[in-house]
């Protein structure tokens, strides 16, 4: 690998965020063409099945990552399969996503009456919810994941506990959604 490529590897190695080509070019003090060539050289050297590390082109630039084939070993060494107790906020967000099947952040905020960015981010990071397209208003929608079902011991979302205890009529998701939104608005109005 030539010196420019080595420097690219080192820069990506030390950066926890993807690095844009322009940033590489500025730090190296050379033109974009040379950087592109260097990146290409790195990409060829760090191809899957070669060194255990690969070059990824991601939004925002380039990043190094471990080769997917090594994941089981890395997981055995480092992954701490933690399932810490859910906070009230997390449980509420998760319940809304599970019972309504799909929900956007603004809807969750309206139902809960508070901004719910932080519990949603945690749930997403723990792999309990995931994005699933956009609503007709353009808001990102979320749904629960297969991992969620496993961690709650559910065969499907239909095996969620009945809500009859709380709301005998709310069988349909649409109806439930409206009730939740009404209750949320009343709470905020108080």
């Amino acid at each position, binding site marked *: 690998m030539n010196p420019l490529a080595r420097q690219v590897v080192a820069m990506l190695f030390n950066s926890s965020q993807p690095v844009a080509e322009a940033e590489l070019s500025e730090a190296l003090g050379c033109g974009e063409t040379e950087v592109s060539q260097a990146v290409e050289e790195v990409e060829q050297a760090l191809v899957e099945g070669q060194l255990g590390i690969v070059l990824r082109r991601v939004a925002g630039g380039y990043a190094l990552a471990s080769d997917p084939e090594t994941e089981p070993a890395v997981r055995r060494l480092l992954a701490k399969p933690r399932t810490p107790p859910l906070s009230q906020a997390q449980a509420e967000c998760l319940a809304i996503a599970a019972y309504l099947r799909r929900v956007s952040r603004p809807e969750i905020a309206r139902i809960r009456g508070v901004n719910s960015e932080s519990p949603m981010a945690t749930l997403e990071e723990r792999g309990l919810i995931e994005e699933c397209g956009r609503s007709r208003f353009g808001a990102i929608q979320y749904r629960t994941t297969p991992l969620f079902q*496993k961690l709650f011991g559910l065969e499907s979302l239909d095996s969620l*506990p009945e809500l009859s205890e709380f709301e005998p009529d709310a069988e349909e998701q649409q109806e439930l959604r409206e009730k939740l939104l009404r209750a949320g608005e009343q709470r905020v109005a108080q």
Partner: protein
Amino acid sequence: MSLVDHEQHSPEPTDGMTALGISLDVFEGPFDLLVTLILNEDIDLLEVHLAEIVLTYVERLEARGELDLEAATEFLVLIAALLELKSRLMLPGEEMDGLDLEPQEAVEELLARMLDYRRYRSAAEALHELLAAEQGYRFRSAPLPPELRRVALDAAGKAYEPSLLADAIGGLLRTPPKVDTSHLNRVTVSLERRLAHVRELLTTRRSFSFDEAVAGADRMTQAVTLFALLELYKGGELTWKQSEPFGPIQIQAQEAAR
């Protein structure tokens, strides 16, 4: 001499002996420098009043009301070293016999301490060099990729009770009861009770003064009583008069309205 270790890169000292603030302004630096300076007569230890340092320290300790054992020990170690040094310097050679220490021995002991410090000072220099040589080796510090921070799907087992979801959604479906704020501002005076009290007076006494109505009551009760009187006046149950500002208020039942 200053017992304060002036550290350029460290945060403000917050506790312990650094707060002692003795400033003799003659010395600041490590042990062998102190010894050397004293021996070279750059600082005259005989002119450094160790008793004053001790007194200042004890006073400060008293003012603080608590003993930081660690800092106290550090102080004792240092003051003991200074006392030892000073006593040796003050005693002429012949009188050293009393201490069972030959001048030669005293010198050897001081020397040993100086050499000890010098070894660590050199080791510190070596550490500086080591660190400088290592500056080029950077270690990666990035969080684990998300897929490694969560449980693998195949390995996942049941960890949570589904009922917690039902409870959460159930809670959201209910409009919570009105927030009870009584603990925030406990109202101990009730207007109704004061109204009843005034009406009672109106019935039994027909006429009475405001002071009588609020005899022995606190300010809050007085205010609420005034409010009750206003309420009854508005309803035509009473009339009242005050002949001069801040003078007594006389209350009279209003026959017609009753």
